[in-house]
């Protein structure tokens, strides 16, 4: 364990949102509030004192109720959000998708979107051309390549997004409860792909409400509860404790 490289180092991360200022987005309101002295600070702590270390090749499940801060944590790790205090260090390439297919443009065709999404992930057009067939094949969308993405079902979109995000071997793969929309067959396919990536040394950060899935795929887990870390450690222990709590 000790000799393995640390790929994600989350160190006492705290995320704070200012609820009141989030609502002011025009000058009139701003001045009105300023005059009335209502520009007070109503803070919301989305994450508090979260600390854990992920080593290379590990699979971590993030569990917790809705609004516990799972997605916020993933956003911090992928660099979208900067922590208010604390430190975060990531070593290695990261497939920075919080939601599969986030970079899709509904007006563009699937073909255009494959390139667009690939470039959003930081790959070059040349690279995408080389892997184009592979993606299309995995996503099983050959016959719809030239229709605009807005006509796709959510399952098809998820398939395409997953195919692009896992096409190369990222050092860190982030999966945020997207597989819920795929059908059973595709689900199996995705799990297989993730297992393959894991076997090849990719680090997985996995968010899901399906505890059985987390148990099957992951070896470690973090349980978040209202922004605080409730428990961290071996996946079976954390899941057991979590399920115990849920039954109450």
């Amino acid at each position, binding site marked *: 364990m000790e000799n393995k490289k640390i790929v994600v180092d989350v160190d006492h991360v705290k995320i704070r949102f200012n609820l009141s200022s989030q609502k002011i*987005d025009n000058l009139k309101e701003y001045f009105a509030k300023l005059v009335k002295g209502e520009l007070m600070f109503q803070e919301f702590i989305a994450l508090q004192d979260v600390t854990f270390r992920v080593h290379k090749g590990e699979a971590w499940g993030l569990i917790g109720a809705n609004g516990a801060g799972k997605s916020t944590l993933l956003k911090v790790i992928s660099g979208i959000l900067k922590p208010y205090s604390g430190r975060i260090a990531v070593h290695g390439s*990261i497939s920075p998708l919080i*939601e599969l297919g*986030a970079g899709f*443009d509904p007006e563009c065709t699937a073909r*255009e979107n494959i390139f*667009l999404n690939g*470039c959003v992930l930081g790959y070059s*057009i040349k690279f995408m051309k080389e892997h184009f067939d592979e993606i299309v094949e995995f996503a099983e969308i050959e016959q719809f390549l030239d229709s605009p993405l807005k006509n796709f079902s959510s399952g098809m979109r998820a398939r395409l997004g997953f195919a692009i995000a896992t096409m190369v071997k990222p050092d860190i793969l982030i999966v945020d409860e997207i597989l819920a929309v795929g059908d059973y067959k595709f689900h199996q396919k995705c799990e297989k792909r993730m297992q393959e990536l894991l076997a090849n040394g990719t680090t997985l950060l996995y968010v899901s409400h399906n505890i059985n899935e987390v148990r099957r795929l992951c070896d470690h887990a973090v349980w978040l509860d209202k922004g605080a870390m409730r428990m961290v450690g071996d996946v079976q222990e954390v899941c057991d404790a979590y399920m115990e709590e849920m039954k109450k």
Partner: protein
Amino acid sequence: MIKIKAYIHEFWRYRDLRRLLVEKNVKLKYRRSFLGYLWSILNPLLIMLVMTVVFSKMFSRNIDNYPVYLFCGQLLFNFMRNSTDRAISSISISGAMLKKCYLPKYIFTLATIDGSLIDLIFSMGALLVVMIATGARFTLWLLLIPVTLAQLYVFCLGLGLFLAQANVFFRDMHFIYNAVTTAWLYLTPIFYPIESLSEKISWLIRHFNPMYFYIEQFRSMVYKGTAPSLVLIAAGTGAAVLMLLVGILSFYKTKDRFILYI
């Protein structure tokens, strides 16, 4: 220093994204339209035609070949207005994407300015048509057009970055800017000669209106067929660099907070 290197590396890494975003904007703009790209040429031509009909009587005494005179100013000013106007919302409308993947945010602003530049280059075709139709003189000074366009591009990029970041926090930017550009349009000698203004206003425009720097340079080459004045090139470059600095610094300072507002 290491930070700057990292930024350059990032810029390079996402160059293809920039290209695709530009392509996407250009493509989507004319998708399903019958005449397609031709509109980039037709649109300025039609507007120029109307303005020529309306204004040529008014100014024909002191401006010969009014269509070309007008077109020079109109082309550059429209580029400035369209590119920055689109840049304003470039960050806020990309919210969905920025919330979900890590990307250098300025790419979106950069891509809108690039897209407008492509429009401008298409519109140059219209200028060519007008020049031929009116029997304008073609000189080798035309080869220096890119010098002016480069200054204008940098200027618009700076302005666009500044406006885009401001719009994330205050969505009124669009409306304020609309009023500003309208005033700006009338304070730039586009359809009238600068001589017809009062001494004082003319002085102010000649010294503080960057669009005047660019349009005058452009007119020297296209309309008068002479060398652009070095003073104007220096002034234009200065204004562009200053604007770019303002844009980059304001953008850099606020970029980490975008996510909380988009």
